[in-house]
């Protein structure tokens, strides 16, 4: 038994090596760097950053956009996933459609949105032609276009996580609820929804983390007035050559992402003790 477990250890080694050398060590050095000033350990980098009005704006915008995109993905994804999982006759095909956007690069998708949302794009032509607006509106390089980009980028992840969980809810449970007198709507809220929470949380964590860390989409669909944390890191590191400040922003981003993810988790445990 002891010998066997050593062999298993050997098998785990390459993976552990990779994670330690290419992720944990850089991460710790990044973290360490952010607390390092001219006089050794210091929190001054953080005080400086949080005192900065510009950073405050970016920080709040990042959070707001990510949370909003997550909420939109949840609202759009839930009924879609429910339909595909429980009612669709061509499940494989529907899943393929839902996942299809994941096969194109975010760069190409962002450029497509530029074409669609641009001053001469189809959305503007339509809005003008039905007389809603006299002049084409600016739909690009603002928070609206970024949210649209995020939602399209991450909706498949939400749908997939939800389908995974919903597929595991036996049909007998909804029948039992109906048999006990619940209408379709009530059995949805009492049975399907609480049992799907774990999928909703997984999906939300994926979408939120994705939105917080995405770089291409906010860079291409956001303007100079709508920086988010990830584009800010790039700005500090590459344009301003301020690596300390860049790592401070990175650490803040990691901490916020982890905090919000665990908040999602504890929220779900309150609704469904099983999850």
């Amino acid at each position: 038994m002891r010998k066997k477990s050593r062999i298993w250890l050997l098998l785990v080694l390459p993976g552990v090596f990779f994670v330690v050398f290419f992720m944990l060590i850089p991460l710790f050095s990044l973290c360490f760097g952010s607390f390092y000033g001219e006089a050794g350990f210091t929190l001054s980098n953080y005080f400086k950053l949080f005192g900065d009005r510009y950073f405050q704006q970016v920080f709040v915008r990042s959070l707001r956009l990510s949370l909003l995109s997550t909420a939109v993905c949840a609202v759009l994804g839930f009924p879609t996933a429910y339909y595909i999982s429980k009612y669709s006759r061509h499940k494989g095909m529907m899943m393929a459609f839902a996942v299809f956007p994941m096969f194109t690069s975010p760069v190409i998708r962002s450029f497509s949105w530029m074409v669609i949302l641009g001053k001469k794009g189809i959305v503007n032509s339509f809005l003008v032609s039905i007389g809603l607006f006299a002049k084409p509106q600016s739909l690009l390089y603002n928070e609206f276009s970024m949210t649209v980009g995020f939602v399209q980028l991450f909706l498949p992840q939400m749908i997939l996580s939800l389908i995974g969980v919903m597929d595991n809810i036996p049909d007998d449970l909804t029948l039992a609820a109906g048999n006990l007198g619940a209408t379709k709507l009530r059995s949805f809220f009492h049975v399907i929804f609480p049992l799907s929470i774990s999928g909703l949380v997984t999906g939300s964590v994926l979408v939120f983390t994705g939105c917080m860390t995405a770089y291409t989409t906010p860079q291409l669909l956001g303007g100079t007035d709508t920086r988010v944390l990830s584009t800010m890191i790039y700005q500090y590191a590459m344009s301003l050559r301020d690596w300390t400040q860049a790592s401070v922003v990175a650490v803040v981003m990691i901490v916020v992402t982890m905090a919000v993810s665990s908040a999602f988790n504890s929220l779900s445990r309150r609704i469904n003790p099983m999850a």
Partner: protein
Amino acid sequence: MALLELQNITAGYDKNIILKDFSLQVERGEFVSLLGSSGCGKTTTLRLIAGFSEPMEGKMLFDGRDYTHVPLHKRNFGFVFQSYALFPHMTVFDNVAFGLKMRKVDRQTIEKEVMHILEVVDLRGFENRLPREMSGGQRQRVALARALVIKPDLLLFDEPLSNLDAKLRVKMRVEIRRLQQELGFTAIYVTHDQEECFAISDKVAIMNGGVIEQMGTPSDIYNNPQTEFIARFVGFENFFELTRTGEGRFKTEAGQEVAVTRDRVGERFKGCIRPEDVLIAPAGENVPGGIPGEVMVSTFLGRHNQLNVRTPIGEFVVSTDEHHAFGIGSAVTLSMMSNKVNLID
């Protein structure tokens, strides 16, 4: 008038017809079992009654009212699932209370009713457990309590005991029968277990290929099966042609006279008898109505030996307590015990 009546129901999925021109009547207070092998349509019938699916053709009457298109949540029927279908995220209390909550019963009454029914199924003290923290038998009782607490007009059981071990199965079926006699509910019970269904029901309907082959009391079906399918199902293994010679008396193709359990109108029938009702003796002994034969196979089955005997009217399966008396190839004489021959179509 029957409480529940299915009239000429046709049901199935797409082109796969499972029930064809199916009819069934259940009286108030009766415990009726649907017995049959898998794929015979028994579960389809039960789900149709519950309202989980609608028939393609035919009508369902309940208490004189047309229930064919009444949605499932408006039928006050309890359903006990094979999988129990307990809500995994709810405690035992909330599971049992669910039906009452849907009926907008006030809180105090819910509390009282749930605790009472948990007492009845002997689960008091478990109300704050989650289903996954309970054993199979306990979950089964939660499912039963959840179905009982709404005081259903009809209780439907879909193989509720098939996931339990043999000992618990016997205990639970006694329990279900006791509850039914105590509370007096009308029940339809689906199973493929013959012993279980005979033990628990007032009436048994044996299904085969989407139709009811025979419906009657357990003893009626056990002693007087009407078709070869049912006869085989309840343990008849020997089948032979019979021609009438008098009232209640018939003769085989080889001329032996036999008396039948229950006479029917007609001249020619198929007769059948159970292995244990055939007597075997060494050849040469003078047995009235004896059928000569030769032992082909002898199988040791513990309490008795099973012999396959070749006779002029077909192969007979016979069971005997005498383990070594009849070797393979030995000549024997068979005789059928009086009044143990049953007529089938």
